[in-house]
């Protein structure tokens, strides 16, 4: 215990003050970053892009209701559905089901990621 108290370069109250300061600074930085991100990318886009293992395999216009099955030879699959101008993964056989839980997305800042299958769906503006 003695050795440990000697090692301390700053007192506990000083450390606590540093912690609070850093928390406020980081919270402000991340908060501003998040706000800027929302302002810059907040428009709704017209097409859902399905990317599988790094390759774009589908571009689905959001104004047309459709459903596609994406998958590979191992039997991994995700069903991507466009409905009411929004896109969602309605069914998948991935272990965590996170892509299904996320639900519908419709803005360019959003993304559905199915990491076990290496698939992501995101929205793209026209052109």
């Amino acid at each position, binding site marked *: 215990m003695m050795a440990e108290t000697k090692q301390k370069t700053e007192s506990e109250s000083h450390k*606590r003050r540093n912690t609070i300061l850093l928390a406020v600074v980081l919270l402000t930085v991340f908060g501003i970053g998040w706000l800027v991100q929302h302002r810059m990318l907040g428009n709704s886009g017209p097409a859902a892009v399905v*990317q599988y293992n790094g390759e774009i395999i589908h571009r689905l216009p959001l104004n047309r209701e459709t459903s596609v099955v994406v998958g590979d030879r191992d039997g991994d699959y995700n069903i991507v559905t466009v409905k009411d101008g929004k896109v969602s993964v309605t069914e998948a056989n991935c272990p965590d089901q996170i892509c299904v839980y996320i639900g519908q997305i419709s803005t360019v800042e959003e*993304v559905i990621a199915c990491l076990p299958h290496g698939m992501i769906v995101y929205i793209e503006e026209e052109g």
Partner: protein
Amino acid sequence: MYTRRSGRKIAYLGLLTAAAMILSYVESLFPVFGGVPGMKLGLPNAAIVMVLYLYTWKEALLVSFVRILGVGLLFGNAFSMAFSIAGALLSLLSMVLVKKSGKLDCVGVSMIGGVMHNAGQILVAIFIVENARVGYYFFVLAISGLVTGLVIGLISGELVKRMRIAIRNDGSL
């Protein structure tokens, strides 16, 4: 004396590892917390922070590794194991460095751990889907890691105080 002491230490580390594993399991019951993938309470980090403060970074690394291995074998798969190792290692590394610097207290160390855990997982996610778009979640996850890290730090700080006393009294028996 030596064997008695090391036996006691192993018992305490086992206890904390078990606590970390239970907390991981509790956390896995909510796959998508708050509507953002990867957003978690970081409960197991409470046990890791405690080991880091009660012992050294070596014990913390050991407990962290055994937790991931155990949880992966019991409730997960190779994918989830690799994914959590990335977050846990980056988180632990940054916590050890911050603690060594002596500038922040236990709450600050836990806070940095929370943020870096999410940062590590986003890096792996970007690598897996080969698209930087998953980085979209960085700010949200950074904020959530910061807040949950703070709370976890407060809790584990109190627990460390009490466990230090318990371990010391235990030694005099």
